[in-house]
């Protein structure tokens, strides 16, 4: 047990800490709300996390390279609308083609951001703040005041998110959640195993050193934005399938939610460190708080946002302190062991 504990990386520890915070929160809300734990709670949270996990992953890729993408919500909304338009005029089109369309559509927006940030050398917070507004206004223009409604969409699309895939201990895993988990897992494997993706960390932790090591930092930043756009596009498709009714406000505020999930999930806002698994748990944590607060009778409608903010702060602080303590404690123990070993050797 201690052996395993000692071998865990700080990121691994952080994930354990996050899980602990989530369990604590669940226990707290269970003590406050009657009938809190039921199979529905899992469906609720997994349903919205399916979308949040994708945008949190998208945001993580960009944050890792010391950038930020505030246009994510607009890209999700635009893709959802465009995909809805496309599929309602061509109801016969194949699912695979639609997925490809959404990824490419989102990636185009990402490429615009990436070009200006990486090659135009404009800070990403400014670029994406501008494109957030520009993409949203383009959507308003493109939509022509129409909205996409569920009855124009093919049944396979609107039924997909709620298809039960398998059930564990009475918890129903639905298709959208399982699909999102697969995407997050794939992104995790890519980030940890593939050399071009490892470069995201290098560029994020020290751009100069990365350049010296022969990494084309611009290309890396550009690809981070393109990948992020593609994932946001996929989230847009998921959004369309789940909600069916798309107006021009679709995805509004997702940029902040994605940043919150990533940061709560332990992704360093200054780049260079973090995991998408952490971002996924961050999304779960934020959603647990959000879903539970609505049911907590003593928090009124108007205070919920503030309480949500406070709880996010609290969980991040707890998590940071906890992780730091654990790392320090482990280092101290390792040090003590080395000392002891040295003393043993020194003894005649």
């Amino acid at each position, binding site marked *: 047990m201690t052996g395993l504990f000692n071998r865990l990386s700080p990121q691994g520890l952080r994930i354990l800490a996050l899980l602990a915070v989530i369990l604590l929160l669940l226990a707290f809300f269970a003590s406050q709300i009657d009938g809190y734990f039921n199979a529905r709670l899992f469906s609720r949270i997994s349903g919205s996390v399916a979308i949040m996990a994708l945008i949190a992953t998208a945001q993580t890729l960009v944050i890792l390279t010391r950038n930020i993408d505030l246009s994510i919500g607009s890209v999700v909304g635009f893709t959802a609308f465009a995909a809805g338009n496309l599929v309602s005029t061509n109801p016969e089109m194949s699912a695979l083609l639609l997925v490809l369309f959404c990824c490419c559509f989102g990636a185009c927006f990402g490429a615009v951001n990436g070009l200006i940030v990486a090659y135009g050398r404009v800070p990403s917070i400014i670029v994406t703040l501008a494109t957030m507004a520009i993409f949203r206004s383009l959507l*308003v223009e493109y939509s022509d*005041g129409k909205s996409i409604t569920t009855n124009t969409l093919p049944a396979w699309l609107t039924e997909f998110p709620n298809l039960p895939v398998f059930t564990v201990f009475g918890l129903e895993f639905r298709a959208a959640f399982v699909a999102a988990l697969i995407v997050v897992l794939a992104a995790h494997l890519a980030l940890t195993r593939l050399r071009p993706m490892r470069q995201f960390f290098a560029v994020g932790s020290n751009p100069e050193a990365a350049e010296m090591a022969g990494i084309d930092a611009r290309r890396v930043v550009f690809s981070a934005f393109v990948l992020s756009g593609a994932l946001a596009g996929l989230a847009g498709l998921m959004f369309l399938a789940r909600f069916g*009714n798309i107006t021009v*406000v679709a995805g509004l505020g997702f940029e902040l939610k994605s940043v919150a999930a990533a940061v709560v999930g332990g992704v360093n806002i200054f780049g260079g460190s973090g995991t998408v698994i952490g971002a996924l748990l961050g999304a779960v944590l934020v959603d647990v708080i959000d879903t539970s607060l609505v049911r907590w009778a003593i928090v009124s409608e108007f205070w919920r946002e503030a309480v949500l903010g406070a709880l996010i702060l609290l969980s991040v602080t707890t998590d940071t302190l906890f992780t730091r303590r654990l790392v320090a404690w482990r280092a101290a123990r390792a040090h003590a062991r080395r000392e002891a070993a040295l003393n043993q050797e020194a003894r005649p």
Partner: protein
Amino acid sequence: MKTTKILGAVAALMLGGAGLAYADAIKLEGGKDTSMILLPKFLGILVFDQANEGAQEAHKELANPGKLDFVGPTPENSVAGQIEIMTTAATQKLGAVMLSNNAGDQIAPAAEAAQAAGTKVVTWDSPIPSAKGESVFVAQVDFGSIGVVMADMAHSILGGAGEMAVLSATPDAANQNAWIEAMKKTLAEDAKYKDIKLVDVVYGDDQSEVSYNRALALVDKYPNLGLIMAPTTVGIQAAAKAMQDEGLCDRVRVSGLGLPSEMVSYTMNGCAPEFALWDFRDLGYLSYYTAYGLATGQLKGEIGETFTAGRMGDYTIEADPGREGAKRILMGPFTVYNKDNVEAAAK
């Protein structure tokens, strides 16, 4: 519903009589040059575009050589954007601004500045709560009667007894807040509704995903909930979809204000057996006639003034019973949709 129509007919007869006895309805003279803007809560919502179609129709009919622009803020910037557009309007020497207010009383100073610069401010759909800076409000329906209609739909869907919750738009929306108040009053005052319990009011911000999640949270929070009343076109369809997705339609029904084309499937499958709405094209048309009359000086905007609004007939400026010191023009009536008439209306 029937009573509203009869009342409307009686009122029209009385107006007609009054018109004969005193002055004829003012016939607005077309062809006068005045530029106006139609300012919705934000761009990209179907009903506001319908209002614009109605206004454009009236604009052509009156052969106004000036311009009619449909200008609105983007969704994420609704409140600040509306105030900004109103502020700019004051400097552009516009004849009138037609406003569906989403900014509460925060827009009043800008509206007063516009009035001082000679620009009339006609509100439609959603008024300025204090009426400061507002010339007249074109009310789609009597706000009190919306309360009665919503209470009646709840009564019929719940079979006279049960728990209901309201899923509204934004906490700042003056029209939704007034309707909810009117419904609460109806529920409290009439013994017919004594077994209907309003358990909560929540806000979905007129966003599909927020409304969807709020609707599900309501079901979790109140195990005995029988009805979600959503007086917003975005909220009602999000709530209906949420109940349908989770297979809850036999337990929790949805009602409120919705567009037939967006609600038809939910009405036919029983998730939203009844809902109501008025015609937004007519609302835009009537608002334009009112604004044109005021901007060209043919209407003074005084209580008791009656004028002819083209194809829609005669309307009179009256005191607004819901807001002290405010003036309104009442359009009405509205239609209650159910299985029998929703399919025809959706086409």
